[in-house]
Structure formats: structure tokens, C-alpha cells
């Protein structure tokens, strides 16, 4: 199938009954091997999704995924509920994996580039394999098998074994290259009191982000334990700049680059006294003092790191210092890549001593430090085989293109961490004519006539054979059904409790894959090389990881969670330094190191040390498809390829760079575009309350009985029917409301609670919303016009009042607030009455509905929406074939001229309602889970029914932290936000004293009281 699945094939699949399941779900045609997770349909029921369990391979974390397939097409991924890694959730990258599956840039099939010809010639798989086997045979007969090199990336489990056996059997060499994979993925800090991260962006890429985010929420969010005592861990970020993870910190300590280890040493003891360390690290003594105090006060402290951004040549030393804080006796091992081995191979390649290279690693040409000059070495190799499913920087220099399956199309297994053996299961037939590496290797082995232990006809059989020990027969079925084997006996699948307690099985720090212990190393500060005056921080991207997911439109359109810059890269620079260089936000800078130079736009903010600049990995691709072409620059070009002295792990830290202004400045259409604003302009949207105050409040308000809670009743009063004055007699409802219209007192009033204390701003919800609701991507220029169609956005506020704005551009704050903003589904919705054609109206179950077919596009509703959460289809946006295969058949695709907005995933509500009706019962609380709620790794959303006083929603909304945004408008929003909990008295600004609906405020000090006197005075 050169151009994907044809409609006719597709219908065959659907019509083919039992075989249909097989054909639809399986690449290798074994009908009986596919076991749907929830239900086991004998045939596909058109319109009814089938779910398959598999494992996410977008990053090393290996989250368990549930993939929703409609008639044989994967449309949406979700976390496997009982999975120890994903806890039923995902990150933004995981949500976007379906776009990797249907990416229009993917190789359509195997091809060969003859020397001098240039254009690839398409071949059959057997043709390519025969050809390759012949060449390998040639080398072996000439006794030069040693010149065959296999660069593998992040292989574990079966693939690791196969690669090892294959290379051994052929006599080839294997070298491992798996960037950003050497972080431990099995730490447990869910119950820590103090968490210290040394540049470890564990909420983004470090280790196991979803699992860690889940733990972080439980450790850091405000909660009350069984005894009713308030609990909230503290989090300290140590590093020269603040990525997303750092923004959640209660304290940011920015030591002089290279001296981070001293902080760890100080805390672990035997690191000298605080004053001396403060002196050496340039950290303000009082800050260090606070850290030391907190450290002393905390019963359980966990330190993480160093993250890739802080990994220099002394990484092991820092890691061991950090480990001592955790009280781990033996120094934990490094893992992942040994760059030394790779560098040696590259030298041989350059010297022409490598005749044939197989590459199945994450795009070395893009992710390897420029100083290693990989590409020019690669060009010296006669036979260059790429398994990359995408055209990328590496494969464009290869002459054998053997596109691998996307992980949603292949059989495989993976070990995220000890004790967890995850299975990767194909959820549909391959989109293109691809073949997975395992099958290729087995085929080559067959053709070469070399014997591999446990060799089989197909990789699937090979895999099963390998698993015979762990799971066979029904156990295998169970394993496939759940997506792997972990935690000893199989745990029964259960939907996640809304804010439940799901901890990981593993508790002790253990070695990541593959373990490579290193002895104790003496710590010394990292010395920076280079002439420039700025220390360079190169840090992994939450959206693009090391660049491997950079071609997903959703992730490009999603603004960076920190800078809120979509579709672009930038260099972060401190305002002080910017002033010195006379640089403004968006001006172009030339960044030069010993190894290269690049041009990027300046992003000026105080989240980076004045003597440091930070650049994100991931963009700056040269051959990675239509959407990444010419976006940003690749910071790896600035690095030399040093490695950790002890373990050989790549060193991303330790380079100095010089900055030069090129004179290109920001205009409305060129340069970078930062979405939103940095302060709240006194709007009191994202509010916070101090830990002390909320503790007092909860103590005082103890014994509140849900249901009899006056505020809850009042909110219920807003429930869907009638205008209810903000201060009304709640008991008057719904009798009073009943007289309005024909709506009777409905059973449900859908609503949502959002806990700002849990939100880490990762925007997984946003991408989930794109995936679930067929939201189109509008592209960079339209985004700059403010026409992005995101139904759910994460607002990131550094401050409250406009006065702070200037100050905050200079001084970093420890109170950064994230505010998920979506349709508030108001009871007195301002958007509804202004619509002349009833396109916007109120449903009996309290939803603020938008009827696309009725909409004529007056845009009055959007004008009248105080939250500005309604978006308009300015054009009819295209879904590039085959990306349109991902469209959710349950949701309308909108045309130009139509208004749209969040629907609380009404399609899911109705699906559940139908299900309940079929079973002749009422909906259970927590049964309906909108996409955003489902995705959130910190479980910060609660969706449910306000009419039911016992529902989790009603209980959560009753919190003293509860409030509704812009409440004075009396739109009666159905979304209750729970205030973020800060350690110090927070400012909330806003105008005047305004009673918060949930009475929480009489306990919270009116921080940042009325500003109006300073507003618009004229």
C-alpha cells in the first residue's frame, strides 16, 4: 500500500468479522493474537471503539497506553489505568504519538539510493533484504565483518537480545546511542517532604515524566492526611535556569554554573559550611539558609539529578553527591549512552574503516554534538542503512532506507524499569509499507544462514518465544491485554480514582537500563570551556524531547509551557544581560561557541542566570519534514561532544558562548510570538492561598458535611436552569428556577473542579483535547494573529498586578501560577442570549452547547465571552492526508465560519449515558471522563455532577480553596478552581474586596488588596 489504507481495504477490514479484528489490529496477520482490553468483540461493531493496550515509545519512560481504534484506525491514546508508569495518564508527547503514526512525511516503503543517482528507488522488502544480505555476505567472506556497525538506540528486552545475537552471529559490532535515557525511572518521592532537583526536569523528560508528575502532585499539592492534618511538600529547584519543572518550585537556587554539586555536598554533609558554599556558588546566603532550614525540617528528603542540562564532565560526581542526600549507600549507576565508544566508531567511520552501518537510533545526525561531526563521518561509509520511519537528518545521508513501523504498528516489549516488562502491541495495520526492525534482522539472519538462538519466522514468534518463561497461554493473553507484566501477580484493571492514591510498585532506587556501575568519583566543580562570556545551557524539550517528536503539528502549535512561544525556538537571556547587549525580546542573536554558531531570537526573562543563556533542544532540523523545515536552530551544534569522565555519558553542560546582536528585530510577523501576558492585570483569575491560611481555614471549617454545604447548594442553584443572583437563597432553587422555560429539575449538572495546586502547566490536557475533538492546527502565521483553535489553554502567570509586570521582568518569582482555561459552561452564559440563531444554548444537563450546523458566525458570542474561550474557524482547515485518519468519528469536523469551543467532551458524556441506559442504571460518579481530565498526569481536574452532593466534584468544590473566576459577572460558571497553595502569603490583586463564592476568603488574607486607585487614573 504505497499510499496508506485504501477505502476498499478498509471496508473489507470492517466487514470481515472475526478476521476483521485481526486484519484491523495486527500487522502480522495472526487473528487470535489480538486481545482488546475492555471488551472482546467477536467482530468490529462500526461506531463502537475498540481499545488495545500497548506501550508508549515516544520516550524512554515507557508509559502504558490504551489506544482507541475506530474501525481499525487508531484515533486516540490514553494511559492504561492500572499501569505503574502511566497511572492511566499521559504527557503531551504521548498524546501526539498518533500524529507520528499518521504523519504524512513518513517513508512510504523501503528504498535504495544508488550512488550518484540521488533519488531513492523504491524496492520490495524482499528485494532490499536480499540486497543487504548479499552485501553483508560480501563483508563476511572478505573477513571484514568487523567493519559492520549497528548503532542501536534504547534497546531493551527482546530487541536488545536480538540485536546482540545478530551482531554476534554476523560478527558485526554494536554501539548503543540513546540520548537522555540515563536517568533513573524508578524513583519514589510521592511522600517526600522536601524535593530537591538538580536540573532534573522530571516533569518533562527526565526519567519517567508521567510517573514523576503523578508523584510530584501527591507530594507537592495541598492535601489533608487521614488525621485531617494539612500536608504539602516543598520543592527546591537548583540550576542556572528554570524549565517547566523549575516553575513549580517553591524556591529557586541558581548557583554559579558548574558549582551545583557543592549545594548537594553541603546538604549531604561534609560540604563545608553554608557561608563558604554561598561564597563559592554565588547564591544569596539567605536563600541557601532557607534551603538548609527546610532540609532540617523535612523528615523525608529526596534529591534528583543531575538532569541533562546540568550533566557535564563531572556528572557522576554530582550524581553521587545527590545520591548521598537520598541516603543511598552505593553510588547509583549511570546508564544509557557511552559517548566514548560512539566517538571511537565515528573516528573509524571517518577513517574509512567502517564498511557498513545500520542505524536505529534517534537521529544521531541531529542529536549528536556538532563537534563530533557525525555526518561527514557517515558519508565515508559505503553502505548506510537507516531504519528511521521518518526522513530525518540521518536518513537523508543514508542509501538504504528501511522504514521501521511506528510503535503503534509493531510487536515489541520494553522494560521501563526493573519489575515492569511492558508489551508493545500493534493496534492497527501499518499505515505504510513498513517493516519492523526485528523482522528485518530475522530475515537477514535467515538469508545469511546464520543461526540465532530462538530464531523464528517472525519477530512476533521470536518475542513470544522469549516471553515463554514470563507469560504463556492465558498469562500471555492477560499480559497483552494489560500491556505487560508488572508488580508480581496481574492487578485487576480498575478505573483510576478521581484523585486517588495510586503509587508505584517500586520504592527503592534501582539501576536504569542498561546498568553500568561506576565507582565513587571525587567531586570537583565543572570548568567551562570557550571564550564567550555566557555559560550555555542546552536542555531537553518537553514537547520535542531531543527532537524526535518535533515534527508533530500538535506539539509545534502547542506553545512552550514556559515561554508560551509556539512554532519556534529561542535563546533565553536574562534582562540584565539583555540590557547590556541592548537586546529586546525577539531580537535575533548569534550564539557562537568553539564548535559552531547559530542564530536565534532572544526570549528575555529572569528565569535564567544573568551569566547564562539557555537553548532548548529539538528544533533546527534540516531534513525532518514539512513542518520543521527552517524552524529554530539546533543547539547541539554548539557542543563539542565531551562526555562524563566516569561513565562516558554525553556532557551537555560546560560550554561557553558569545552573543552578538544581528540587528534583526521582532516585528508582528517575523521573530517569535509570545502568547498571552506575564501578569494577571489584577484580574484575580489564578488565585493562591498561603499554606498557613488554608490550614487555619480547614481547621476552622472542619466537619463540613458535603451536601449541606451552603456554597455547594448555591452553585447547584446555578445549575443549568435559571439566573441565580450571586447571593440568593439556595433553598429557593430549583423551585424558583423551574418557572423559567420548560426545563424541569434535571438529574445532572455537569461541572468541573480544577486544582491549581496540582497543575504543573504541562498542557497534556491541551493536546488531548486536540486529539479528542478534531481541533485543527492553524500554523505559525495564524497563531501569531491569535487564531489558534485550542479549546483549552494553560495560562502562565508570573505575577498579579500590572505594577509587578516590570519588576517581574527583572526578578524571578517563586509563585508562578498555571491556570487551565476552558469553557466555563456558565449557567447564566453571556454567550447564549446574544446568538440570533440559537446556535449557543443551554442544555437541560447544564452544558453550554454550541450547535455547529446552526452557527452563521456572527462571533457575538465570542465577543461576549469574558473568558475568551470561544474560537472561530476563520478558514476551512485541512488535515493533511493521512493525518485525517486520526479524526475522531464521534466529533464533527467544523467548516469555515463556525464558532466552536469546549463541550466537556459531550460525545463521551452521551456514550456513557447510552451505556448506562443499556444497563438500565444511572451514571456512576466519575464514569464520564473528558479527554483533558483523563490525560492530566497530576489528576488536577475533577469532572462530575454538581447536583449530586455526594459526588467527588461536589466534595472537592466544597473546599475552602474553591473559587470561581470573574465571579462578580454572575455568569455562574460551572468550573470551580481550587486556589494554589503557597508557602508565603500570596498576592491576589484583583479589584476591591470581593467575596469568593466558597467562603474561603474570610480566612485568606486579602493579599494585594484593591488596586483601582492605580488603575487607569486620568
Amino acid at each position: 500500500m504505497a499510499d496508506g489504507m485504501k477505502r476498499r481495504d478498509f471496508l473489507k477490514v470492517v466487514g470481515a468479522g472475526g478476521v476483521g479484528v485481526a486484519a484491523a489490529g495486527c500487522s502480522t496477520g495472526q487473528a487470535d493474537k489480538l486481545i482488546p482490553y475492555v471488551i472482546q468483540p467477536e467482530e468490529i461493531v462500526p461506531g463502537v471503539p475498540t481499545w488495545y493496550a500497548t506501550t508508549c515509545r515516544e520516550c524512554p519512560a515507557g508509559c502504558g497506553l490504551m489506544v482507541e481504534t475506530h474501525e481499525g484506525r487508531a484515533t486516540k491514546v490514553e494511559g492504561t489505568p492500572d499501569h505503574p508508569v502511566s497511572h492511566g495518564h499521559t504527557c503531551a508527547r504521548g498524546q501526539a504519538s498518533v500524529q507520528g503514526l499518521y504523519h504524512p512525511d513518513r517513508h512510504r516503503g523501503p528504498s535504495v539510493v544508488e550512488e550518484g543517482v540521488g533519488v531513492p528507488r523504491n524496492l520490495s522488502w524482499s528485494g532490499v533484504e536480499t540486497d543487504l544480505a548479499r552485501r553483508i555476505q560480501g563483508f563476511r567472506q572478505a573477513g571484514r565483518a568487523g567493519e559492520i556497525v549497528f548503532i542501536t538506540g534504547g534497546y531493551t528486552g527482546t530487541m536488545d537480545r536480538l540485536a546482540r545475537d545478530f551482531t554476534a552471529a554476523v560478527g558485526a559490532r554494536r554501539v548503543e546511542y540513546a540520548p537522555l535515557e540515563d536517568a533513573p525511572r524508578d524513583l519514589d518521592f510521592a511522600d517526600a517532604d522536601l524535593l530537591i532537583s538538580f536540573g532534573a526536569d522530571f516533569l518533562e523528560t527526565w526519567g519517567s515524566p508521567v510517573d514523576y508528575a503523578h508523584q510530584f502532585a501527591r507530594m507537592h499539592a495541598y492535601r489533608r492526611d487521614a488525621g485531617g492534618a494539612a500536608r504539602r511538600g516543598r520543592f527546591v529547584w537548583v540550576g542556572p535556569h528554570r524549565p517547566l519543572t523549575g516553575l513549580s518550585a517553591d524556591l529557586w537556587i541558581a548557583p554559579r554554573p558548574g558549582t551545583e554539586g557543592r549545594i548537594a555536598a553541603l546538604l549531604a554533609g561534609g560540604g563545608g559550611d553554608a557561608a563558604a558554599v554561598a561564597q563559592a556558588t554565588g547564591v544569596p546566603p539567605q536563600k541557601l539558609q532557607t534551603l538548609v532550614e527546610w532540609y532540617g525540617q523535612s523528615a523525608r528528603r529526596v534529591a534528583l539529578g543531575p538532569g541533562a542540562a546540568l550533566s557535564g564532565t563531572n556528572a557522576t560526581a554530582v550524581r553521587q553527591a545527590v545520591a548521598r542526600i537520598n541516603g543511598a549507600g552505593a553510588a547509583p549507576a549511570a546508564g544509557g549512552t557511552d559517548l566514548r565508544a560512539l566517538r571511537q566508531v565515528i573516528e573509524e567511520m571517518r577513517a574509512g574503516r567502517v564498511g557498513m552501518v545500520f542505524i536505529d537510533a534517534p537521529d544521531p545526525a541531529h542529536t549528536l554534538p556538532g563537534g563530533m561531526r557525525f555526518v561527514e563521518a557517515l558519508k565515508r561509509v559505503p553502505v548506510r542503512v537507516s531504519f528511521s520511519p521518518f526522513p530525518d537528518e540521518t536518513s537523508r545521508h543514508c542509501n538504504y532506507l528501511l522504514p521501521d513501523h511506528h510503535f503503534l504498528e509493531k510487536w515489541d516489549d520494553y522494560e521501563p524499569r526493573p519489575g515492569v516488562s511492558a508489551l508493545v502491541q500493534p493496534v492497527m495495520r501499518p499505515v505504510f509499507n513498513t517493516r519492523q526492525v526485528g523482522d528485518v534482522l530475522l530475515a537477514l539472519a535467515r538469508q545469511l544462514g546464520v543461526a540465532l538462538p530462538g530464531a523464528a519466522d517472525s519477530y512476533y514468534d521470536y518475542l513470544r518465544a522469549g516471553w515463554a518463561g514470563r507469560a504463556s497461554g492465558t498469562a500471555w493473553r492477560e499480559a497483552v491485554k494489560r500491556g505487560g507484566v508488572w508488580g508480581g501477580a496481574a492487578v485487576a484493571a480498575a478505573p483510576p480514582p478521581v484523585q486517588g492514591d495510586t503509587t508505584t510498585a517500586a520504592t527503592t532506587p534501582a539501576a536504569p537500563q542498561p546498568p553500568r556501575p561506576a565507582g565513587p568519583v571525587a567531586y570537583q566543580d565543572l570548568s567551562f570551556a570557550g571564550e564567550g562570556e555566557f555559560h550555555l545551557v542546552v536542555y531537553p524539550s518537553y514537547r520535542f524531547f531531543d527532537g524526535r517528536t518535533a515534527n508533530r503539528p500538535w506539539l509545534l502549535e502547542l506553545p512552550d509551557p514556559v515561554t508560551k512561544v509556539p512554532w519556534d525556538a529561542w535563546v533565553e537571556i536574562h534582562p540584565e544581560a539583555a540590557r547590556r547587549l541592548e537586546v529586546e525580546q525577539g531580537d535575533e542573536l548569534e550564539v557562537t561557541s568553539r564548535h559552531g554558531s547559530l542564530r536565534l531570537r532572544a526570549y528575555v526573562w529572569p528565569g535564567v542566570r544573568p551569566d547564562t543563556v539557555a537553548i532548548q533542544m529539538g528544533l533546527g532540523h534540516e531534513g525532518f519534514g514539512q513542518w520543521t523545515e527552517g524552524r529554530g536552530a539546533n543547539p547541539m551544534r554548539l557542543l563539542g561532544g565531551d562526555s562524563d569522565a566516569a561513565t562516558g555519558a554525553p556532557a551537555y553542560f560546560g560550554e561557553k558562548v558569545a552573543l552578538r546582536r544581528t540587528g534583526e528585530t521582532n516585528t508582528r510577523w517575523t521573530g517569535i510570538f509570545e502568547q498571552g501576558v506575564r501578569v494577571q492585570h489584577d484580574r484575580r483569575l489564578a488565585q493562591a492561598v498561603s499554606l498557613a491560611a488554608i490550614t487555619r481555614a480547614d481547621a476552622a471549617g472542619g466537619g463540613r458535611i458535603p451536601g449541606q454545604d451552603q456554597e455547594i447548594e448555591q452553585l447547584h442553584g446555578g445549575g443549568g436552569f435559571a439566573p441565580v443572583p450571586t447571593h440568593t437563597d439556595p433553598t429557593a432553587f430549583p423551585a424558583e428556577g423551574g418557572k423559567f422555560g420548560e426545563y424541569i429539575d434535571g438529574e445532572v449538572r455537569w461541572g468541573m473542579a480544577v486544582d491549581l495546586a496540582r497543575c504543573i502547566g504541562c498542557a497534556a490536557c491541551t493536546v488531548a483535547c486536540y486529539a479528542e475533538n478534531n481541533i485543527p492546527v492553524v500554523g505559525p502565521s495564524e497563531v501569531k494573529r491569535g487564531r489558534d483553535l485550542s479549546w483549552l489553554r494553560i495560562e502562565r502567570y508570573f505575577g498579579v498586578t500590572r505594577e509587578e509586570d516590570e519588576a517581574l521582568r527583572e526578578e524571578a518569582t517563586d509563585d508562578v501560577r498555571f491556570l487551565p482555561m476552558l469553557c466555563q459552561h456558565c449557567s447564566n452564559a453571556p454567550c447564549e442570549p446574544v446568538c440570533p440563531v440559537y446556535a449557543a444554548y443551554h442544555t437541560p444537563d447544564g452544558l453550554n452547547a454550541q450547535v455547529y450546523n446552526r452557527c452563521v458566525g456572527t462571533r457575538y458570542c465570542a465577543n461576549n465571552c469574558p473568558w475568551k474561550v470561544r474560537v472561530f474557524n476563520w478558514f476551512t482547515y485541512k488535515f493533511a492526508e493521512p493525518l485525517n485518519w486520526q479524526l475522531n468519528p464521534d466529533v464533527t469536523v467544523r467548516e469555515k465560519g463556525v464558532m466552536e469551543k469546549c463541550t466537556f467532551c459531550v460525545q463521551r458524556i452521551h456514550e456513557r449515558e447510552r451505556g448506562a441506559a443499556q444497563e438500565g442504571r444511572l451514571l456512576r460518579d466519575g464514569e464520564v471522563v473528558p479527554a483533558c481530565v483523563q490525560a492530566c498526569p497530576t489528576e488536577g481536574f475533577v469532572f462530575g455532577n454538581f447536583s449530586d452532593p455526594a459526588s467527588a466534584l461536589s466534595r472537592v468544590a466544597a473546599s475552602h480553596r474553591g473559587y470561581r473566576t470573574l465571579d462578580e459577572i454572575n455568569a455562574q460558571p460551572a468550573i470551580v478552581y481550587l486556589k494554589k497553595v503557597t508557602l508565603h502569603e500570596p498576592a491576589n490583586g484583583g479589584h476591591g474586596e470581593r467575596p469568593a463564592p466558597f467562603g474561603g476568603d474570610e480566612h485568606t488574607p486579602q493579599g494585594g488588596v484593591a488596586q483601582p486607585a492605580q488603575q487607569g487614573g486620568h
Partner: protein
Amino acid sequence: MSKLRTGVLGVFAYLDTATDAIRRLKHAGYEVTVYSPTPRHELEEALEVPESPVRIFTLVGAFTGTAAGTALATWTSIDWPLLVGGKEVVALPAFSVIMFEVTILLGALSTVAGLFILGRLPHIGPPEAPLYHPSFTAGNFGVFAHAPRDRYDQVQAIMTEAGSEEVLLDHR
């Protein structure tokens, strides 16, 4: 009121002479049709005509409009009641605009209808008076006396006496 189809037309350059002629003719018992380039009270006074009943049309039309507007807005809302913004389904403050606009619309249209019916516009069929002179829309006044042929002489005399510039007889 069917007037005689025959008669004599007097063309007057002056308003006072025309009114004078009208008075004399009416006194002589003739029905007259007066042409004038612009409405003058003097003429109406001389003719002693009652107030125009157009206003009845206006009144009825306007009230019909109010009723229609109210009915439209109210009935369509009740026919398929949908809640928007928690407002009343029958929201009279909002509907008052509709009522008002329809009132004006029907009121105006029925006024025009009244004009056309009472003023016999557009003119189809035989004219009210058989004789007409284009100068009547310019500067001259015309007085047509509806009279049987045998009285033409008398009428002509009255016209000339009153100061008619020109007298036309209807000979058909």
C-alpha cells in the same frame, strides 16, 4: 360620489383668482375638481372639504403591527422553548424592540395603503376630470367644473369673470 364626466376647465395663474372661481362655482351649485402645483389652505377652505380619514389606516395598521410583533416573538419562543443565558423564555423587555419595529412597519405600510385607496392612486381607468393641463404641476391652478354640456356657457362666464387666463371646454 360620482361626478359628471363632462365639464369646463379654467386655468388660473393666481391663487386668489382660482379660489374666487371655486367659491362662485360652488355657489352656483357646481361640483369642482381643483388642480394645484402645491397644497394650499386657501383652496381647501374654498372647497370646504372634511379632514382626510387616512389616520384611521395608520391607527389600525400600527395596532395590528404591535399585536403581530408580540405574537411572533412570543409564540416562536414558546413553540420551542430554549434557555439562553438563564433568561426568561418569554422575555418581554427584549421583545419590546420587535413589537415596536413591527408597529412602525405596518403602521407606515397601511398609511400608504390608505393614501392609495383614498387618493385613488395609482390612477387606472378614466380620470376624475376629463381635462388636465401640464402647467398645473408647474405654476398654474386649475378649476374644473363638472357641468352638463348645456351649461358650458354659464360656467365659462363665471370662470372668465373670476379671472381665468384660459378656459377649455370638454367636447367629446
